[in-house]
C-alpha cells in the first residue's frame, strides 16, 4: 500500500475542476474553456505518471483502502490492474480530445457553457473512480452516479429529440442498475453469512457461493453490464442517445461509459462468479455473435450517420463480449485491447463526422456527396477513422479483432466463423458511407463546406497517431493487459486449450 493516494488525486482532480468551472463567472467564456481543457490535460498527465510507475503483472497497485460504511462492509478501496489502467488511460486521453473538439458545442444548449464543461469533467472523475474501484459497493455507487452527468449532457445539449433520448437512456440504465443492486445486496447477504460482511473484491473472491445463488447474482450483474455495453436485445437506447447527443457526448458515452459494461463483465462477472460465467458462456457467446451480425446489418441500412456509428458499436461490443466469454488469454487480452482501440477509433469517427455535420447541418448520408474535393483533410481523417473501424491491417483495431477471433477459434469454431462475417459487413457499412458522402461529384449544396481548422485537426491528431502507432506496435499496451487477463482467467478456472499440434512436434519436423 502506497502512502500517497495517487488514484484519489487522479479521480478528484476533474471533480474539483468541475466545481471550479461551475463557479467561474458565466460571462468569462474565454477563461472557462481553456480552464476546463487545462484541468483535463492535467488529469491526463497524472494518469501518465501512474501508468509510468505501474509494474505489469504485479496485481493491484496504488491500492488505497479505508472503511466507509462498516455495517455494510463497504470500503473506500481503489487500485488498478492492467485492465483498469488501460481504461483509465482511455478516459483521461479522450476527455481533453473531446473538449477540444466540442469547443462550441456547449453554446446552443439549455444551460451555460460552464455547466457543459463541468458535467464533462464530473463525468471524467466518476469514470476514473469506476475503473479504479476495488470494492463492489463503491463501484456500484460510482457506476450509478455516472448516469447523472451523462443524462444532463444528452438532455441539455443536443438535437431536437434529446429529451426523449435522455429519458430512454436513463430508464434503461436505471433498470440495469437496480437489477445489479439486487445482486449487490445478495453479495452482502452471502458474505454476512460467512462472517463479517465485506464488499472488497479481494475478499469476495475467496467466499464460496452456492451454485444456484451464484447464477442468480451473476444474472443481475450481467444484465446490467449488457445494457451498458450494449448488447442485443437491450441496445435500443444507444442509437437514440448517440444520434441526439452532441458528438462529444456520444464519444464519452460510447467510448468511455459503455466500456464500464465490458469492464464490469471481466472484473466482476468473471472473478466473482466463475462457475456461473462458465455456465452462461454458451448463451452469452451466442448473444454476442448475434450482436456482431445484427449491429453490422443495421449499420449497413442506416441513413443517419450517428445512428450508423452507434450500430457499428453494437457490433464491436459483440466482439468484445465474445472475446471475454471465450475464456482464452488471447481472446480476453484482445477484448481488453479492443476496448481501448474501439474507444479511440469510434471517438475519431464520431468527432470527424460531427465536424462534417456541424458544417452542413444534416445528419443524413444522402445529403452529402463529393465532399473530399473541397475538404480533403476532413475526408482523409474520415477515411482513416473508418478504416480503423473496419479493422484494416496496420491500424490498431485490427490487432485486437484478430486476437479476439483467434482466441475464440480455439474455444468455439462456429462462433468465430460467424463473427468473422461481421468484418465483411464492417467493410460494407464503412466504405458505403464514405463513398456516398465523400466521393463522386460534389453536390451543389455541399459547396459551402470548409475544411477542418487547426483546432479540429488538433483534436483528431492524437487519435490518428494512436490508431497508427498501436496498429504497428501494440506491445506496450498488451504487456500491461496480458498478465492481468491471465490472472483473471485463473479465477475462472480455465486454462488455454492445448494446441492440436504441440510446439515440440513442430520442432522435430523442422529440418
Amino acid at each position, binding site marked *: 500500500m502506497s502512502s500517497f493516494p495517487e488514484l484519489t488525486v487522479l479521480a478528484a482532480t476533474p471533480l474539483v475542476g468541475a466545481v471550479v468551472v461551475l463557479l467561474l463567472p458565466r460571462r468569462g467564456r474565454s477563461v472557462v474553456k481553456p480552464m476546463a481543457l487545462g484541468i483535463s490535460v492535467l488529469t491526463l498527465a497524472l494518469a501518465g505518471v501512474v501508468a509510468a510507475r505501474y509494474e505489469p503483472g504485479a496485481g493491484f497497485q496504488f491500492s488505497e483502502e479505508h472503511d*466507509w*460504511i*462498516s*455495517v*455494510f*462492509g463497504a470500503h473506500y478501496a481503489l487500485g488498478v490492474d492492467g485492465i483498469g489502467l488501460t481504461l483509465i488511460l482511455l478516459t483521461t486521453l479522450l476527455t481533453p480530445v473531446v473538449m477540444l473538439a466540442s469547443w462550441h458545442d456547449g453554446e446552443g444548449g*439549455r444551460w451555460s457553457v460552464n455547466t457543459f464543461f463541468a458535467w464533462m469533467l464530473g463525468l471524467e472523475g466518476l469514470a476514473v473512480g469506476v475503473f479504479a474501484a476495488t470494492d463492489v459497493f463503491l463501484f*456500484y*455507487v*460510482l457506476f*450509478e*452516479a455516472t*448516469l*447523472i452527468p451523462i443524462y*444532463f449532457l444528452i*438532455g*441539455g445539449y443536443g438535437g431536437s429529440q*434529446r*429529451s426523449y433520448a*435522455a*429519458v430512454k437512456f*436513463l*430508464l434503461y440504465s*436505471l*433498470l440495469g442498475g*437496480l*437489477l445489479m*443492486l*439486487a445482486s*449487490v*445486496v*445478495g453479495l*452482502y*447477504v452471502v458474505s*454476512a453469512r460467512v462472517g*463479517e*460482511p465485506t464488499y472488497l473484491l479481494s475478499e469476495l473472491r475467496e467466499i464460496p457461493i452456492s451454485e444456484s445463488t451464484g447464477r442468480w447474482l451473476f444474472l443481475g450483474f450481467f444484465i446490467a453490464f449488457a445494457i451498458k455495453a450494449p448488447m442485443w436485445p437491450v441496445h435500443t437506447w444507444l442509437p437514440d442517445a448517440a444520434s441526439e447527443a452532441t458528438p462529444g457526448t456520444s464519444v464519452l458515452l460510447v467510448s468511455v461509459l459503455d466500456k464500464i459494461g465490458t469492464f464490469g463483465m471481466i472484473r466482476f462477472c468473471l472473478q466473482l462468479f466463475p462457475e456461473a460465467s462458465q455456465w452462461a458462456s454458451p448463451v452469452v457467446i451466442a448473444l454476442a455473435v448475434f450482436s456482431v451480425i445484427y449491429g453490422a446489418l443495421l449499420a449497413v441500412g442506416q441513413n443517419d450517420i450517428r445512428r450508423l456509428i452507434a450500430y457499428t458499436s453494437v457490433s464491436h461490443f459483440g466482439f468484445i463480449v465474445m472475446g471475454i466469454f471465450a475464456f482464452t488469454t488471447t481472446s480476453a487480452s484482445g477484448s481488453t485491447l479492443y476496448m481501448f482501440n474501439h474507444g479511440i477509433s469510434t471517438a475519431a469517427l464520431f468527432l470527424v463526422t460531427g465536424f462534417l455535420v456541424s458544417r452542413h447541418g444534416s445528419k443524413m448520408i444522402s445529403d452529402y456527396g463529393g465532399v473530399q474535393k473541397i475538404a480533403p483533410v476532413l475526408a482523409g481523417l474520415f477515411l482513416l477513422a473508418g478504416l480503423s473501424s473496419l479493422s484494416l491491417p496496420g491500424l490498431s483495431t485490427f490487432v485486437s479483432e484478430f486476437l479476439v477471433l483467434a482466441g475464440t477459434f480455439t474455444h468455439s469454431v462456429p462462433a468465430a466463423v460467424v463473427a468473422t462475417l461481421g468484418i465483411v459487413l464492417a467493410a460494407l457499412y464503412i466504405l458505403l458511407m464514405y463513398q456516398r458522402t465523400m466521393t463522386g461529384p460534389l453536390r451543389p449544396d455541399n459547396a459551402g463546406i470548409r475544411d477542418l481548422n487547426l483546432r479540429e485537426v488538433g483534436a483528431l491528431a492524437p487519435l490518428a497517431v494512436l490508431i497508427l502507432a498501436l496498429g504497428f506496435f501494440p506491445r506496450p499496451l498488451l504487456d500491461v493487459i496480458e498478465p492481468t487477463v491471465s490472472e483473471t482467467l485463473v479465477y475462472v478456472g480455465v486454462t488455454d486449450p492445448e494446441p492440436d499440434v504441440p510446439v515440440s512436434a513442430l520442432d522435430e519436423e523442422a529440418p
Partner: protein
Amino acid sequence: MTLPMQPEFTSPVIEYSRLYPLLIVFGVAAVGVLVEAFLPRDRRYLVQVVLAVLGLGGALAGTILVAADLDVAAGDLTARGLVAAEGAVSIDGPTVFIWGVLLALSILSVLLFAERRLEGGITAFAGQAAALPGTEAERQASTRGIEHTEIFPLAMFAVGGMMLFPAANDLLTMFVALEVLSLPLYLLCGLARRRRLISQEAAVKYFLLGAFSSAFFLYGIALVYGYAGTFTLAGIDRAVTDRVGGQNLLLAGMGLMAVGLLFKVSAAPFHAWTPDVYQGAPTAVTAFMASCTKIAAFGALLRVFFVGFGGAQWDWRPMMWIVAIITMVVGSVVALTQTDIKRMLAYSSIAHAGFLLVGFAGVFEGSSGYTGITSLQSILFYLTAYGFATVGAFAIVTMVRDAGGEATHLSRWAGLGKRSPLLAGVFAFFLLAFAGIPMTSGFIGKWSVFSAAWSGGAWPLVVVAVVMSVVAAFFYVRVIVLMFFSDPVGEGPTVAVPSALTGIAVAVTVAATVVLGVVPGPVLDLAQEAGSFVR
C-alpha cells in the same frame, strides 16, 4: 369486630428521569393552550413559536441525555433500556432513536408552520376556521389579518402522541397515544387558508376513515385481550409463544390490529385517504404528517409485531408480504398517472411505505454477535432518510406559487429549472433521493431494507421491490424532466422567497440527505446501538 384486611397501598413508580422528554412536550402543549387563553392576539404568534421550538428542542436535548445512559436490559443481550411507568411505556434503544428523529423533524415542521412571508405576512392557516368559506365573516377575518395560533399547541399534542405511540408497552396506552396523535392532525388538516373546501374535505375524510381504523384497532385489542388475558406486550408474547387457547381469536385480533396500524403508515389497501388528505391539508401539515406520522406508526407496528406477536411471525409474515407487494405496486404505478405534485408525493409516500414493509416482512433480527444489518436497524435508518427528504420536498412545494396560492399542478412546474435553478436543483435532489440514486440518503435506505429482507430470506420480495423501484424512478425522473427540459407554459409560477424559517428547514433537510447518503455510518451505528426492543 375486625375490619377486613386492607391491601397495602403502594404508589406507582414513575421514572421521571427517563420520561421527561415526553412530559416536556405535553407540558409545553398545555402551556400553549394557556397562552391562547390569556395573551392578547397580536402577541401569541411569537410566544407560541418560541415556546414550541424551545419545548421541542428541550425534549430533543433530553432525549439525547436519556439515550446516553440507557442500561443494558436485564436478561437480554441485545436490548438496552427499561419498561417504565408501571409497564405502560418502554424506554429502550428504538424508542429514543425514534424520539430523536421525530423531534428533529417536528422542529423543522414547526418552522414551516410559522412561515409568514410566503402568504404576505400571515401564516398559511385559516384566519378563522369557524367562518364558512366564501362568507362575509371569512372576508373580515382575512382583512383583519387574524390567524389561528392554536396550530402550535395542536402540533405539540400530536408530537406528544407520536412519541408515546411507538413507546407504548401495553395496548391501551398505545390506543390512547394513537388518538392523541390523530385528533390534532384531523383538525390541522382542515385549516388551510387557501382552497378551504378541499382542505375541509380532506379533514372530514381523514377523520372518518381514521375513526374507522381506530375502531378496527380497538376491536383487535379486545380480541387479543380475549386471547391473552393481558394488555402488556410481554404478556401477549408469552401467551402467543405458549399457544394458549383458540388460535382464531389471536389471528382475528392480529389482523384487525394490523389494519389500524397499516392505515396509519398508509399501506395499501388502507391507503385511500393518503392522496386526498396530503393534497388538501396545508402543505406544512402534509410535511409534518407524511414524515412524523409514518415514523411513529412504523415504530408502533414494529413493536407490536416484533415484541407482542413475534412468536406468531409465521402466521403474519405471509400477510405482510402481500401487503408490502400491493403497497409498492399501488404506490409506484398509480403515481405515474398523477398530475398534482402533492398527490404524486402522496403516492410516493405510499410506495415508500411498501419499501419499508419489505424490510419489516423480512423479520431479520440477527443473533447477539451479528454485526450486519437487521430489520429494525434498516427501518430506523430508512425512516430517518425518508423523513428528512419528505419535509424538504414539501417545503419546496410551499415556495412555488402563483396568484391562487401554491401552484401544485404539475404542468405549472414546467421549466422551473430555468426560472430558479437552485430551487429546482434542490427539488430534483430530493426526488433523486426518493428514487434511491446513490450518493443520496434514499439509496442507503433502500439498500439497508433490501439487505435486511434478503437476510431474512425474503429475496423474492427484494426482486419485486427492485422492479418497483424502477417504476417509481420513472415518475420522479418525469418531474425532473419537466423542470429542466420543458419550457414554461404561459406565465408560469413564481418562486417566492421565503423567510429564514423555511430556508433553515430546506437547508437542514438537504444537508441531512447528503450526509446520510455519503457518510451514513454514524447514523447506521446509532440505529445498531439502539439494539432491539425491551420486553
